[in-house]
């Protein structure tokens, strides 16, 4: 008896201890920012101006770095009498030709002491694709080209001595099973001076005399290969069973599989220090080892570098990198060789790190983060983009639950409502109230209201899309929404007319209507659904009146403009109304255009938000997070943005936009940008060319009314949508009635809705 008591007490103690351990473990991490140490991921960019031209290869050797640049000149031979642009001139006898040349430079690992070693004018078909340098500084260049006579793609290796003198050549055609396509994708060399070629699914190792030493074939294809830290060859292999990292074992004559860490590998690079190899991970460079450990060593945004402009990045093996910088966005292209130098911790500014995370982060956010980082010295935005993982949302949620939460969460394609329901996000209204620069009144209140949850603003988006139907005023009248019954009436009126475009199918119409009308059939507050209603059955029947994909005869369909003019298509679906659309569709509908909201129980127009952002409710960096969010909401950023995201949430940005599209004279805006009056044209199929000129007062008023009429937000739910589409199949194939299908949808969706309450 007493023994039992002791055991019971011991068990209780163990339970208590486990509770304490788990409780402390669960609340351990409070913010992702602590996970990022700027001192570990910061690099400085140094340009090496002595190297000119398009950089093709950067190759570190024992004590020097070799860089190859290529040039290509169009030397096409045109037949006599040929005139470019003249449709009567025959193009048959044109001999398209390019004269290719390349240059090889050497420099030390600091990018200093740059010397042009040699240049080579290539003959006939050849182009220089890749280069590697052997341990004795022999330079091996890979040439490839298409032979018009034999119609074969050929490859060869040209060897050069350290002084640039030719030291032999070697045709690679014989190494291929298919001699008509001897194309080598990648060239490198190992520590023993063997030359390694990669072609699709093969790695072929040869010596400098061309003797084949090893041939390995994978069950898929090889993504990338490089020399690892110790000079062995390592490859990222994509096979049926998944992606893996394998090293080439010259002794065992085979691959050795390693443990690969999770995450994308865009390109493999030589490792250094603790890292056996490095990978281009999209948002920077990660170092990895063969035991599956992977760690960020360079973060583009954290280092204020525009990663999208950095190409051909190569690890120098000492923790520094060299790359080809090509800025294609500027009015004038900038291209140069750069060295990315690991910054000494003492050089890195002591800034508060703000992590901006999401599963899809667009390029513009990255650019703005860099601009923001450069504009002040208090905060440093670091981007954490989960898109490189196999299951981005799953990986991000796992991190969130582990307490590794970004300070700012980009909720594009993420379940915002669930995050709000779980208390992940902070109410932004109190931040606005305290702020002198951004106020609630700066935004369109009717639009802002659609983002609220119980009077609180847990998310915000700088812009939104006005999702509407364009049609004729004769058909729409003064309605702000059109219902399915109205559409059916109109279709009765115009015998051949259908509301949506000729290529709409049963499935696409149902999907469109569902995504706009979902809230009409679900009451999220009470959990009641009405998919068994007459209204839903009517919607199903309406979608069923369209054709299936197989039934559409694309050859018989007349063009878009004729369809609209002949009332075969009554409406045009506008996913995101732009200012110019008012003018375009006015012309299309014979100056009688009207815009109407999709069928919905709610009066007014619907808004769609694709770039919703929120701040983590427990972030220790509220001020920094709000500062960056304010930057994304600022008039300066939105008015000067070159991207079109739809309508701005800010009133002053909207007024700036209105000025841009209505002004009949050239003017300089508040940010010093010269704005020209609208003057271009839209070519619409069916030979309709619509000139776009500055909008008139009536057109401006249409846009103002549409913005003022926004009353609700389109919410889509992939689970409900999936159930509806699955069940509707039985209706579309004639197996069940709309009522029966509605009943089953009601049954299944009710479970879903009640489960989430």
């Amino acid at each position, binding site marked *: 008896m007493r023994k039992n008591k002791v055991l019971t007490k011991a068990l209780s103690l163990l339970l208590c201890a*486990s509770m304490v351990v788990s409780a402390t473990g669960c609340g351990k991490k409070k913010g992702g920012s602590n996970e990022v140490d700027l001192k570990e991921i910061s690099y400085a960019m140094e340009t090496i101006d002595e190297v000119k031209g398009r950089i093709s290869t950067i190759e570190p050797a024992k004590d020097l770095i070799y860089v190859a640049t290529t040039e290509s000149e169009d030397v096409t031979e045109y037949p006599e009498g040929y005139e470019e642009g003249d449709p009567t001139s025959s193009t048959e006898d044109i001999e398209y030709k390019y004269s290719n040349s390349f240059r090889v430079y050497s420099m030390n690992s600091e990018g200093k002491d740059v010397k042009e070693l040699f240049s080579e004018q290539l003959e006939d078909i050849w182009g220089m694709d890749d280069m590697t340098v052997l341990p004795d500084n022999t330079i091996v260049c890979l040439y490839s080209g298409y032979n018009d006579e034999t119609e074969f793609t050929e490859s060869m290796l040209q060897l050069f001595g350290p002084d640039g003198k030719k030291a032999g050549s070697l045709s690679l055609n014989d190494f291929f099973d298919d001699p008509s396509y001897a194309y080598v994708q990648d060239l490198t060399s190992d520590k023993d001076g063997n030359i390694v070629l990669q072609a699709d699914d093969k790695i072929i190792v040869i010596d400098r005399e061309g003797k084949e030493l090893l041939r390995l074939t994978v069950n898929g294809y090889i993504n990338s290969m490089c020399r690892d830290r110790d000079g062995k060859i390592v490859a990222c292999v994509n096979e049926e069973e998944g992606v893996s990292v394998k090293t080439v074992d010259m002794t065992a004559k085979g691959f050795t599989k390693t443990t690969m860490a999770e995450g994308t590998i865009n390109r493999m690079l030589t490792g250094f220090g603790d890292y056996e190899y490095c990978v281009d991970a999209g948002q920077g460079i990660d170092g990895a080892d063969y035991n599956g450990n992977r760690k960020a060593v360079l973060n583009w945004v954290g280092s204020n570098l525009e990663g999208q402009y950095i190409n051909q990045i190569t690890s120098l093996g000492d923790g520094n990198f060299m790359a080809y910088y090509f800025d294609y966005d500027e009015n004038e292209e900038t291209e140069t060789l750069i060295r990315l130098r690991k910054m000494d911790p003492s050089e890195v500014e002591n800034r508060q790190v703000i992590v901006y995370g999401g599963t899809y982060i667009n390029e513009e956010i990255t650019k703005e983060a860099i601009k923001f980082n450069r504009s002040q010295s208090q905060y440093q935005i670091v981007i954490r983009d989960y898109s490189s993982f196999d299951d981005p949302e799953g990986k991000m949620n796992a991190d969130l639950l582990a307490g590794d939460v970004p300070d700012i969460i980009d909720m594009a394609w993420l379940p915002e409502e*669930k995050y709000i329901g*779980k208390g992940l996000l902070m109410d932004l209204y109190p931040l606005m109230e305290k702020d002198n620069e951004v106020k609630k009144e700066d935004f369109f209140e009717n639009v802002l209201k659609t983002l609220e949850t119980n009077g609180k603003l847990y998310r915000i988006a700088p812009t939104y899309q006005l999702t509407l139907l364009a049609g004729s005023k004769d058909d729409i009248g003064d309605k702000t929404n059109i219902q399915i019954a109205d559409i059916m009436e109109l279709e009765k009126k115009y015998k051949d007319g259908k509301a949506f475009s000729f290529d709409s199918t049963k499935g696409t119409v149902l999907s469109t209507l569902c995504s706009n009308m979902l809230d009409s059939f679900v009451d999220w507050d009470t959990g009641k659904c009405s998919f068994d209603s007459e209204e839903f059955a009517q919607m199903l029947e309406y979608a069923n009146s369209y054709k299936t994909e197989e039934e559409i005869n694309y050859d018989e369909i007349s063009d878009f403009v004729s369809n609209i003019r002949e009332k075969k298509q009554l409406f045009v679906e506008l996913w995101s109304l732009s200012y110019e659309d008012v003018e375009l569709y006015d012309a299309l509908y014979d100056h009688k255009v009207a815009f109407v909201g999709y069928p919905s129980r709610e009066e007014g127009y619907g808004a769609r938000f694709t770039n919703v952002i929120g701040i983590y409710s*427990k972030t220790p960096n509220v001020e920094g997070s709000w500062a960056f969010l304010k930057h994304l909401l600022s008039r300066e950023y939105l008015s000067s943005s070159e991207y079109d995201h739809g309508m701005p949430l800010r009133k002053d940005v909207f007024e700036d936009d209105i000025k841009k599209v209505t002004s009949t004279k050239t003017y300089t805006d508040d940010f010093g940008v010269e704005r020209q009056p609208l003057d271009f044209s839209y070519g619409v199929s069916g030979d309709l060319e619509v000139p776009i000129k500055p909008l008139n007062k009536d057109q401006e008023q249409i846009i103002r009314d549409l913005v003022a009429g926004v009353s609700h937000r389109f919410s889509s739910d992939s689970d409900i949508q999936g159930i509806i589409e699955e069940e509707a199949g039985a209706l579309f194939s004639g197996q069940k009635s709309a009522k029966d299908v509605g009943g*089953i949808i009601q049954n299944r969706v*009710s479970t879903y809705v009640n*489960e989430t309450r």
Partner: protein
Amino acid sequence: MSMKQGKFNFRKKLRSLPKRWRRRILSMSFLLPSMVGVGLFFIIPFGVVAYFSMVDSPFNPSFAGFSNYARLLENSAFLNAAKNTAIFALTAVPLAVILSLLMAIILEQNIPLRSTFRTFFLTPLMVPTASIVLIWQVFFHINGSINEMLLFFGHDKIDWFKSSASYFVIQILFLWKNLGYNMILFMAALNDIPTELLEVADLDGAGSWQKFWSIKIRYLSPTILFVALMSLVNSFKVFREVYLLTGDYPYDTLYMLQHFMNNTFKSLDYQKLSAAAVIMFLVMMVIIWFLFFFEDRFGKDLEG
């Protein structure tokens, strides 16, 4: 030197303890690896689950008392899942026990093709779940072979997976998959019953029913308990087949507790999931206690 001193002291200290304590320490040291394993993989995770069931959010946790339990008990999806799971277990488990026992008794008799039947009933065990699902879809899909047969005999099609008939489809699937294994267990247990006892009963003029009820059932009671427990566990596992056949949100009669848990896990509703898990644990404890209680009552005279 100091190490030696320490070792000596420890031994001395150990020897100075009463024998009862020394034995306890010895047995605890043998038990320790298991206790660490159980603690690490069962008790601590259970502690985490209990913790999550009493906070209001996994991201921003603050103590919420029993409010998650109260909300859960008002959640119609949970109540429906609990009801379906309970009904399924209450019907499928007794059927699985009774039918397999019956089959074992029949196959124990000297009937022709005895071993063929035994193999036949065991084959479902060897079929992978994905194949079972495929077979069931071929049979019970709205355009499946069963409906084709119904049409042939002039009956309307039945939407087996999306109507109240779905419950029977799953019952049949469960029994088809589990009867063979249970039957083998019962056959082994029947073979273990002492034949002398049955011969004595025959001499005493006991009828077949008397022998079955007074001897066989008593000897079978630990096996019945085991088969019932296994069937109970397997009845929860039927989710796997239901999920593969009908997805996350099936027709409401097929919506089981595991659907609820799986879906709430996916939607990060950890507090609801944890509260459901704790409730399920408590209910299971009660059921298992009852099973042990009955087994104890029935079989105590056999265990000595």
